[in-house]
């Protein structure tokens, strides 16, 4: 008899809480039109990258290069979780929604950091995600908010309560599948790609009906028999071909095209046994958002043997009548393509590259002989973590610059035969730092998409896993491995302000406003920090 009473009490107190926060309707629904026109409501942060183009740019300018020196911490939310805290929170009309390690989630009063509801998924004890029990955030649509889980479920929560609205299993997690990315809401669909490139999975991108959880389409990133691209796999290697899709794609509403990047072929360090280009691994896919049908594809690294996933956020850029898509790739090249046809326009190194010295007829970098892994280990730049990785870049339409955290680190790559065993890690050997490697470091680099040239850089003592936010206040925000959250002048890269959070930044910053006051927020260590002017 106790439970129903408690439930009523909770509902009552929540209603009271909501009405007490503000007179306005804090739970107005986010529909597709609001997502398309997100730039009209810069006080909110409605998608993982801030807009469908993937720019992670805020038009708010209350905090700007002239006053950022006085930026101060406003509140800190402690998740109590250990491990890398990779979330990009969403902010909708004064409520901040975030996820944390182990698939926990929270809704906070964005002015104070005080929670409205908390969610914790009860995960099976045998989930085995590679690279941390992380989650990168939500998608929001209607009265629901959506996350992918480490046991490969898609879960819809009620935005007002955090209660589960629906919960569907995408695939059997015991075979090495998991979700770590923030989904993308398009029209009535929730779109997300699978993780598990370390386990010999067969990758895919899924779309679910936001209302019911029914799966509407699936695009396998490794083509099956009879499908175009299947011939790029030797024998049965396609069955364990990997090509996960573990980072959120971009979307162009004017053409209804999704742009979704994919990761490494499996096993990552061994090309023997999977001769061929291994489509669609390390590829940018242009998919029809309604059907998942492939429009075009561009493969960055063919027949990859260095774990150079292309799972970096692509950004749609419109430059002098040209409709471009740009990606700073893990293989060390900054690619700019015509996004209407997938034609490569330029590929320029933005860090040290030793694996390629020439381009083919289409301008694609060609691998040199001798860059493949060897039994003892072959030194190659960039290393396995790449010149950049999943951390979000940003494009600032005011400066016209593409900002990305780069890593200068080379690794020795070894290879060895390894039998596939379902659910077990499947790398085909290892990578490791070489005693002969040059010292590693990191740098935030500002790239010009028109030329591929580096305009400025801000050096980090060690490589950073932080994403980047640019704002109309002529600012670029980023974090570092040493725990600093930093504001730089967007035009020059000069450091204007920093705050020591006490934990490495493994997330990307956002900006939002409540009651006319601009805030900047970032996850660092195991806490979410929010800053504003005094």
């Amino acid at each position, binding site marked *: 008899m106790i439970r129903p009473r408690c439930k009523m009490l909770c509902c009552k107190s929540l209603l009271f809480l909501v009405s007490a926060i503000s007179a306005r309707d804090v739970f107005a629904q986010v529909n597709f039109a609001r997502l398309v026109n997100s730039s009209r409501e810069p006080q909110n942060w409605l998608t993982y990258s801030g807009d469908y183009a993937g720019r992670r740019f805020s038009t708010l300018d209350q905090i700007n290069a002239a006053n950022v020196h006085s930026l101060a911490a406003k509140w800190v939310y402690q998740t109590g979780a250990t491990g890398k805290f990779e979330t990009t929170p969403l902010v909708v009309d004064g409520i901040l929604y975030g996820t944390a390690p182990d698939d926990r989630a929270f809704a906070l009063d964005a002015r104070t950091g005080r929670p409205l509801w908390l969610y914790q998924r009860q995960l099976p004890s045998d989930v085995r995600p590679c690279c941390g029990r992380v989650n990168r955030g939500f998608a929001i649509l209607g009265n629901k908010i959506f996350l992918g889980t480490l046991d490969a479920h898609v879960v819809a929560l009620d935005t007002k309560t955090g209660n589960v609205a629906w919960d569907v299993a995408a695939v059997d997690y015991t075979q090495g599948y998991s979700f770590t990315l923030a989904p993308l809401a398009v029209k009535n669909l929730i779109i997300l790609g699978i993780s598990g490139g370390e386990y010999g999975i067969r990758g895919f991108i899924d779309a679910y009906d936001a209302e019911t959880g029914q799966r509407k389409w699936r695009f396998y990133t490794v083509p099956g028999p009879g499908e175009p691209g299947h011939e790029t796999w030797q024998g049965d290697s396609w069955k364990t071909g990997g090509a996960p899709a573990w980072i959120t794609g971009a979307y162009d509403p004017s053409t209804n095209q999704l742009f979704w990047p994919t990761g490494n072929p499996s096993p990552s360090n061994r090309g023997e046994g999977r001769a061929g280009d291994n489509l669609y691994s390390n590829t940018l896919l242009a998919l029809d958002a309604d059907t998942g049908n492939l429009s075009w594809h561009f493969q960055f690294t063919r027949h990859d043997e260095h774990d150079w996933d292309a799972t970096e956020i692509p950004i749609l850029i419109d430059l002098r009548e040209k409709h471009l898509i740009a990606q700073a790739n893990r293989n060390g090249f900054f690619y700019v393509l015509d996004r209407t046809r997938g034609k490569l326009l330029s590929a320029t190194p933005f860090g040290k590259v030793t694996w390629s010295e020439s381009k083919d007829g289409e301008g694609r970098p060609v691998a040199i002989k001798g860059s493949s892994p060897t039994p003892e280990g072959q030194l190659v730049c960039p290393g396995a973590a790449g010149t950049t990785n999943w951390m979000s870049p940003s494009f600032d339409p005011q400066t016209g610059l593409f900002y990305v955290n780069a890593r200068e680190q080379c690794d020795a790559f070894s290879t060895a035969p390894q039998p596939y065993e379902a659910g077990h890690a499947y790398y085909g050997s290892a990578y490791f730092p070489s005693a002969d490697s040059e010292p590693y470091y990191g740098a935030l680099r500002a790239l010009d998409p028109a030329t591929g040239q580096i305009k400025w850089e801000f050096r980090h003592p060690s*490589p950073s896993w932080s994403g980047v936010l640019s704002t109309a206040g002529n600012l670029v925000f980023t974090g570092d491995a*040493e725990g600093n959250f*930093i504001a730089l002048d967007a035009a020059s890269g000069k450091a204007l302000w920093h705050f020591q959070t006490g934990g490495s930044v493994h997330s990307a910053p956002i900006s939002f406003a409540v009651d006319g006051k601009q805030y900047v927020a970032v996850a660092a260590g195991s806490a979410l920090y929010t800053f504003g002017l005094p």
Partner: protein
Amino acid sequence: MPRNFSSPFVSTFRLVALLLVLAVSTGLAAQDVNPFAGDPKAGKAGEFQFRINCAFCHGLGARGGGRGPDLTRARKRHGTSDADMFHTIKEGVPGTAMPAAVGSIGVVMTNEEVWQVVAYLRNVQVRAPEQPGNSQHGKELFYGDANCSGCHMVEGKGGRLGPDLTEVGGARAVDYIVDSVRYPSHRLAQGLSEATKEFPQEYETVTAVTSDGKKITGVTLNEDSFSVQVMDAGEHIYLLEKDKLRSFKKTRVSLMPAYSATLLSDKDLQDIVAYLLSLGAK
């Protein structure tokens, strides 16, 4: 009913449940021997697991890398029994760069896979010949003519400028120690390892000139983009803000002199290494 074990109304059911739990945990605790001991297939599977999860620090053949100790030696720093090794791999070593097997490096490992790695390490374990050298003479050199103790502490005695070497015998391969003495700038020693940071701080050399013209040269205790903590040869610690310095320069040339064979003979170096290796044996 309140859940209180001191309640006199302990049901028979609960008692049976308690006994069952005790029986099961005793069974687990008894597994201090590798269930895969001597199984060549498990050893091979362990090699795959080792390459994926361990080789990044411990090297391809477990012979030690830049960060991790040589694991082919019979004596392991954190325990040599199967159960000790299982625990070290599964739980990690707090306060060191050795993580628990939760996928921060490599992937999450099952108990079965951890035992396979233990089986692999037994396969590659070498019956190391007794390390040649006179450890007593090595100790005399360490605190005497070679003057290692001017900068390095062992068991609380010695200098603080360089890394404490009390544990180095268990933590580093012999080749690594020899290389560090002959060519200290080749691979800089690693210092402070912070919980959420990917890489430990290295013993880089800093030369800074303060706004009032004071020149400071020392080793880096820690550094970020805006500040640096430095110890000079006199063991003075300086907490410096980079933007307040007149100049700041960092090099990867170690402050430690390179001990060439003329400065320190191969025989004497062998004796010093024997001394350092003997420390962990206590």
